[in-house]
C-alpha cells in the first residue's frame, strides 16, 4: 500500500464514531504475525474501508437491507449474490452490510476473478480489506479457518450484462457448491436490487482489458454511478451442510442440482425485491 497501517488507523480514528471503532476492534481476524492475515487483510484497512464505504452506503446508495439476520455470526459460510452494475460496488455494499450486521464484526471475504490481484493498487487495496483471488486453494483455506466467503457465481459475465438483460442471472458456476458441500458450509443467498441501473452500459471491449487479463471491459453511458437505491435481500441459509455429506462434493449431479437450486433462490429474491421497490431511486 502507498501508506502504512498506522495512517489507515489514524484516518479511521479521525472519521469513525468511537462506538463503531470499538466494535471494529473486536473484528474476527487471524493475525499471521505482523498485524496482517496470510492473505494480506489488515484490521486498520478494514476500518478505513468502512469509513470510505460508509457515506456511499448511507447517503449515496441509501442501502436498505432486509433479512440480514440470516448472515451467520460464526463458522464457515458462503454468501452468494447476483453480480451487476459494471463496477463491483455491489460487492462493497454487501461487504459493509455484513460488517455492520455481525457482532463481533465479520469480514465477507470476496473471492474475486483471477485478474483482480493483478490490477495495480486496486488488487492491493481489496486484499487489505479481505479479498482473495479466485482459486480453490484460497477458498478452501478460508473455509477451513471458519471465514465467510462472498462469491458472485455469475463471474464477469454477470457484472457486464447489457441493460436489456438486467436482473436475468447468468448461469452459476458450480465450484462454490463443491466447496460448500466438501467443507460443510451453509450457503446464504443474497439479492442485490438497484445495482443493475447504476451504470447503464453502452458496449463492452475485449481489447481494453487485455493488458490486465480482464475478459471484458464495460463502456458505461455515464461517467460515475447514478445514485440509485440499493436493496439487499438476504434469504435463509440453504443448509447444504446438513443435506449432504462431504464425499458428495464429487457427485457432479448433486453439485449441479444444488447450484441450480441456489440460483433459483437468488433469482427468487431478486424478483421479489423488484416487485417490492417503488422506483430506481426510491
Amino acid at each position, binding site marked *: 500500500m502507498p501508506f502504512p497501517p498506522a495512517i489507515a488507523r489514524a484516518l479511521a480514528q479521525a472519521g469513525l464514531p468511537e462506538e463503531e471503532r470499538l466494535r471494529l476492534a473486536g473484528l474476527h481476524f487471524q493475525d499471521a504475525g505482523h498485524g496482517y492475515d*496470510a*492473505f494480506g487483510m489488515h484490521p486498520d484497512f478494514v476500518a478505513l474501508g468502512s469509513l470510505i464505504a460508509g457515506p456511499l452506503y448511507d447517503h449515496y446508495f441509501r442501502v436498505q437491507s432486509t433479512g440480514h439476520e440470516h448472515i451467520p455470526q460464526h463458522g464457515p459460510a458462503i454468501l452468494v449474490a447476483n453480480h451487476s452494475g459494471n463496477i463491483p460496488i455491489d460487492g462493497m455494499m454487501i461487504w459493509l452490510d455484513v460488517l455492520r450486521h455481525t457482532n463481533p464484526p465479520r469480514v465477507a471475504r470476496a473471492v474475486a476473478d483471477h*485478474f483482480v490481484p493483478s490490477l*495495480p493498487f486496486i488488487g*492491493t487495496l481489496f486484499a487489505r480489506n479481505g479479498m482473495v483471488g479466485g482459486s480453490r486453494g484460497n477458498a478452501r483455506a478460508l473455509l477451513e479457518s471458519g471465514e465467510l466467503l462472498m462469491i458472485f457465481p455469475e463471474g464477469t459475465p454477470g457484472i457486464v450484462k447489457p441493460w436489456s438483460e438486467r436482473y436475468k442471472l447468468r448461469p452459476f458456476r458450480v465450484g462454490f457448491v463443491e466447496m460448500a458441500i466438501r467443507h460443510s458450509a451453509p450457503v446464504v443467498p443474497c439479492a442485490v436490487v438497484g445495482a443493475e441501473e447504476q451504470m447503464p452500459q453502452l458496449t463492452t471491449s475485449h481489447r481494453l482489458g487485455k493488458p490486465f487479463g480482464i475478459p471484458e471491459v464495460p463502456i458505461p453511458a455515464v461517467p460515475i454511478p447514478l445514485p440509485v437505491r440499493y436493496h439487499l435481500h438476504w434469504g435463509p441459509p440453504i443448509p447444504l451442510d446438513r443435506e449432504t455429506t462431504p464425499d458428495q462434493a464429487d457427485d457432479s449431479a448433486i453439485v449441479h442440482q444444488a447450484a441450480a437450486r441456489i440460483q433459483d433462490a437468488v433469482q427468487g429474491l431478486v424478483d421479489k425485491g423488484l416487485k417490492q421497490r417503488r422506483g430506481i431511486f426510491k
Partner: protein
Amino acid sequence: MKRPVNVMVTGADAPVGERLVRDLLDDSRVDQVLAVPWKEAGHLPKDDRLTVIPVDLSSSRRVHELLFGKARDLDIDIIAHTQLHRTARDESAQVHRYNVEAVRSLLSLSERHPSVRRLVMRSDAAVYQIQRDLPVLIAEHHPLNMTGSAPQWIRDRVEADVTACTRMGMTPLQIVVLRTAEVLAPGTGSQLYDYLESAICLRPAGFDPMLNLLTIQDCAAAIQKAVHNDAQGVFNIPGVDTLPLTAAIRAWGRIGIPFASSLLSPLYHLRSRITGGDFRYGMNRRRFHYSGVLDGTRAREVLSYVPCHPIEWPTD
C-alpha cells in the same frame, strides 16, 4: 529407548549447516556428527563428537569416497543435506553439479549404503510457482516453477527437489524434502536480504504482496526435527514472519519507492553490475507482485515443527 543417531551434515560451512551442527552437538539423541563443508571448516566448534571433512560434493567420486569411507566408519544413520549454491548470478555446469548432481550421487549411494537409512534434504520455497491465479497459501502439492526460461538458480533447485521426490518409496532409504521459506540472513543466498541491503528499495508500484520469511534458527530446528522423525515426504517449512513487502522494507529501516515494474529489471541489473549485488529482479518479479505464503500445516502435524524465532528486524 532409541539409540543415539549419527548424522552427516553437508553445507556445514554455510550459516544453516553450521547452526545445525551446533544444535546436533547439543542434542543428547545424537552421538557422532560428521560435518561436510565445501572447502573449509569455517566457524565450527571443537568437539570430540564432531568430525569435519571438507569435500567438494560436485564430484561423484568424492561423494563415494566420503560415504564409503568416513561415513561408513562413523556408522552414519542420517544425512542432512543442506548444501545449495548461494549466488544467483553464478550460472555454470559446475554450479549445476554442486546443486543437482550432488543430490543424485547422495541418493544413489545412500540407497546401497550399509548404515545410512534416512536422507533429509533442504529444498527451497523458490521451487514453487507464484502467479495470480494460484493460491496464496502454498501447500506441498502447489505447482512447481517449471518455466524453461527460469534462471539456473531456480531450475537447479526444482531439479534437485524433483530428483529427491522421484526416489521416495522406491527403496528402503527414507527421503524427506524440506521446502524452506527464504532465510533472511547474510550468507544464506537470500535474494531479499541482498535487496534490503540498499538504502532505497525500488518496488513495483501498486503491488504489495505477502511474504513469509524464516530465521536460521528455525530452519536448523526444522531439519533437526526431520532428522529425529520417521516420516517421509515433502514438508513446507514456513517462518514466523508473514508480512507485506512494504512492511519488510520499513522494518529493515529502508525506504521503499514504488516504481514502474518494467524498469526495475534493467535498474537492478545495473545495480548488480556496479555493486556486485546478487539480487535479480527478473527472478523475483512474480513474488514482488503476487502473494505466496508457505502453509506449514503438514510440518506441524507430522514433524511437530512450529516456527518460534521471529526475525530481529533492525527497527524493532
